[in-house]
């Protein structure tokens, strides 16, 4: 791994970082010590609110306003970073310590050409002249594997994809060959296949340059993929610190074990089938095209979100729709609940035509299909008490107010939130809000529930709880579910059958076990291979 184990490049000693007054706790990071050595990748893992990014920000001198390092030291090559003036710190940033961030879409200046933004790094540290900077930028873009680097250098960020922008970020961070690279959730916002490529790139560059990398992530799959050593954090403290292999195979702490177990990919789907064969949802040859309005100046653009999509779902079955962003999986879900109207094809629900309903007729039939949404923060009206939020639906379909509210109370109890009907959404956590969203969908006694990325916005441990709840409700109420997700691992855990989509078409469909263990199509295999840490965990199981 490294030949320089004795003197760490970066050494955090009893570091504490205090939050501004009025925050939910006093310290973001409390008495944390860990080292990063040259030539290794250290993964700092934790769920949201664990304080995993804070130490990195302190090292960069980029702590948010009001947050400050209140104790301990951060030694970089023997020098305490916490004691540096802003000016001294600035000369280190970009030169000896580089950093990449989570959101490639917003991390680049939208008004500057990519090449100029890379050249700026040299300018900031007074290196090279104008032409040499551009030449170097081109070389860097080539190194990070951007297609057509000679064109990309003159492009604006909006002309690049998310993965390409993240490559630009990496090129920028590595421009001056820093000794330490800090990567703060660099792949979280990317599709799995892109994520696999970026992880590969980071690992490759790290080996070639012998850099130290501090890699911050919430995903143990990513840890298994890239880490030499791992540091698990929770509530601002270190829970476990050790070699990646050891921690992954023999976690000592309960919390670490829970996190690793919460990764759904440890489950190999059981063979199961639906109990009935009454077709509930029949979809045949569904098409949907989105047209951006053209004007005199821009040509109208067409996106084929759904092309000839056919499948059927029998009563009591759970089907997973899996795909990357832009695959059309969400559009399919929105067509099924009729938030969108398909252009052509057939969409039948228990034999009745659900596609051509309009206006008042549609409104009266809507209760038959309900949806669970992705963002627990946007799915509840902040001004309505949750009891009312759930009761609204039944009331709209003519049930008396008293009955509707009684039902709401019952359902809240069913999803594990009994007695909370007079509270407002902001009093609940993300996971709890998702439970309320489930209760709201159940209140309509729908024949089919569409769950659109229903657990994607949640921490893994919460994800597991919500999936468990869904599983339990499925048994109790014999629900039929259409489960839309980008995460094959989640789909494998809860679905009977899986449909894989790409570019608006169905690539493969089959029982979950078949698709997971013996994928027929190249794209499905690619998706499966891209899941970080997959080989590792399958070997474990």
């Amino acid at each position: 791994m490294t030949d320089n184990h004795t003197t760490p490049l970066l050494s955090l000693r009893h570091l504490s970082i205090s939050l501004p007054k009025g925050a939910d706790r006093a310290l973001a990071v409390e008495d944390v010590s860990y080292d990063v050595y040259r030539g290794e990748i250290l993964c700092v893992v934790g769920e949201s609110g664990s304080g995993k990014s804070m130490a990195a920000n302190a090292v960069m001198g980029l702590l948010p306003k009001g947050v400050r390092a209140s104790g301990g030291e951060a030694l970089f090559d023997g020098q305490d970073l916490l004691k540096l003036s802003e000016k001294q710190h600035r000369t280190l940033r970009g030169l000896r310590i580089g950093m990449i961030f989570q959101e490639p879409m917003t991390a680049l200046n939208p008004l500057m050409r990519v090449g100029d933004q890379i050249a700026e790094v040299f300018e900031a540290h007074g290196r090279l002249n104008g032409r040499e900077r551009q030449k170097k930028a081109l070389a860097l873009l080539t190194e990070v594997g951007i297609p057509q680097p000679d064109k990309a250098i003159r492009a604006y960020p909006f002309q690049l994809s998310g993965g390409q922008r993240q490559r630009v970020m990496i090129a920028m961070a590595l421009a001056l060959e820093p000794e330490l690279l800090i990567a703060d959730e660099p792949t979280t916002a990317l599709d799995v296949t892109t994520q696999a490529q970026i992880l590969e790139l980071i690992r490759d560059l790290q080996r070639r340059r012998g850099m130290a990398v501090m890699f911050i992530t919430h995903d143990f799959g990513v840890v298994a993929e890239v880490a030499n050593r791992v540091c698990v954090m929770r509530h601002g403290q270190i829970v476990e610190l050790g070699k990646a292999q050891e921690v992954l195979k023999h976690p000592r702490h309960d919390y670490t074990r829970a996190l690793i177990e919460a990764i759904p990919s440890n489950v190999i789907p059981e063979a199961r089938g639906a109990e009935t064969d009454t077709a509930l949802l029949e979809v045949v040859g569904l098409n949907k095209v989105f047209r951006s309005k053209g004007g005199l100046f821009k040509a109208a653009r067409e996106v084929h979100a759904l092309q000839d999509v056919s499948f059927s779902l029998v009563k009591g079955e759970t089907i997973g729709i899996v795909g990357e962003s832009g695959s059309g999986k969400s559009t399919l879900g929105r067509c099924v609940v009729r938030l969108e109207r398909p252009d052509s094809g057939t969409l039948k629900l228990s034999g009745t035509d659900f596609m051509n309903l309009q206006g008042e007729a549609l409104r009266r039939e809507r209760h038959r299909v309900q949806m669970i949404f992705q963002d627990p923060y946007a799915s509840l009206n902040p001004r309505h008490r949750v009891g009312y939020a759930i009761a609204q639906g039944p009331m709209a379909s003519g049930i008396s107010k008293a009955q509707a509210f009684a039902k709401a109370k019952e359902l809240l109890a069913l999803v594990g939130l009994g007695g909370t009907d007079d509270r407002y959404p902001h009093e609940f956590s993300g996971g709890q809000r998702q439970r309320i969203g489930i209760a709201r969908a159940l209140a309509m006694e729908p024949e089919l529930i569409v769950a659109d990325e229903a657990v994607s916005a949640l921490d893994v441990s919460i994800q597991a709880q919500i999936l468990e709840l869904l599983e339990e409700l499925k048994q109790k109420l014999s629900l039929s579910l259409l489960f839309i997700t980008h995460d094959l691992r989640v789909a494998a855990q809860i679905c009977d059958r899986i449909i894989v989509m790409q570019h608006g078409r169905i690539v493969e469909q089959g029982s979950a076990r078949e698709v997971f263990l013996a994928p027929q199509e190249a794209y499905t295999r690619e998706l499966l291979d891209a899941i970080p840490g997959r080989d590792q965990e399958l070997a474990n199981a």
Partner: protein
Amino acid sequence: MLYVRLILMRLLKAVVVLFMIIIFNFFLIQMAPGDPAAILAGEAGATDEAFLRQLRERFGLDQPLYVQLWRYVSGIAMLDFGYSYRQGVPVFDLIMARMPATLLLTGTAFVLSLAMGIFAGSLAAARAKKPSGSLIMALALLFYATPLFWVALMSVVLFSVYLDLLPAYGMYTVGAGHTGLALVLDVAKHLILPATTLALFFMAIYTRMTRASMLEASQQDYVKTARAKGLKNSVIQRRHILRNALLPIITLAGLQAGQMVGGAILTETVFAWPGIGRLMYEALQQRDYNLLLGIFFFSAALVIVFNIITDLVYRLADPRIKEGS
């Protein structure tokens, strides 16, 4: 090529808007209480029955409404805005004679308020937490709340009456007969008070907007990226924050152009600046409605010109629009 089409498109839109204003004007005359002929006559000859009859015939006021509308619209299409019976001159000639003065005043105030507003606003943003930043914002709020015409009057009292530094009325020194450079300097001297008082209110708006926009831009991820590169704070402020913050200000400046033309009416009235604003005041005093509506039409046209200019500037500043995504 794109620009030619863009400008053509905007001009087409402008024609539609101006056409709507013409129709609007026409119905205003119809809606007004009393005899339209009397209104057209500017109540000048309202008592002279023969004159009114002559007017009715001339404008076809005895014809059905749609014929009248057609005559009105086709007249304006040929730049015939009617006749100012008060001044004995065609409305179009009156307005054209006054247009240059208004263009000079509003143009100067526009540039002045933008430049000073952006400067003050970025200063206030950079010193958001310091007393100097708060002072700038307090001043901006004060100017924002001050009636334009009152500032104009008070500045006359202070700078002309008491300090005797600057001329208070008109555009030239009457009877001085300046030519060449002397004339330019003379006009510039007369321009200072009206342009500054007109600019003050708008400067306040741009200052507030620039500060808010810069503070928002400084929260963006790309600013953190820039800091991670090790760039100096001043470079980050200028190249990353200000440049992005300017986009909404350009949009705002376009929207404010209409207000600026409206403000010119007050400023020109106070300073006896011989532009269309002053002309509007005179028309009001004399109840010369035909002239009033003509000026209204041209002030809208002026706003459209300002709008087209800001639109073009925006497209230059934002690559996302230029390369058509």
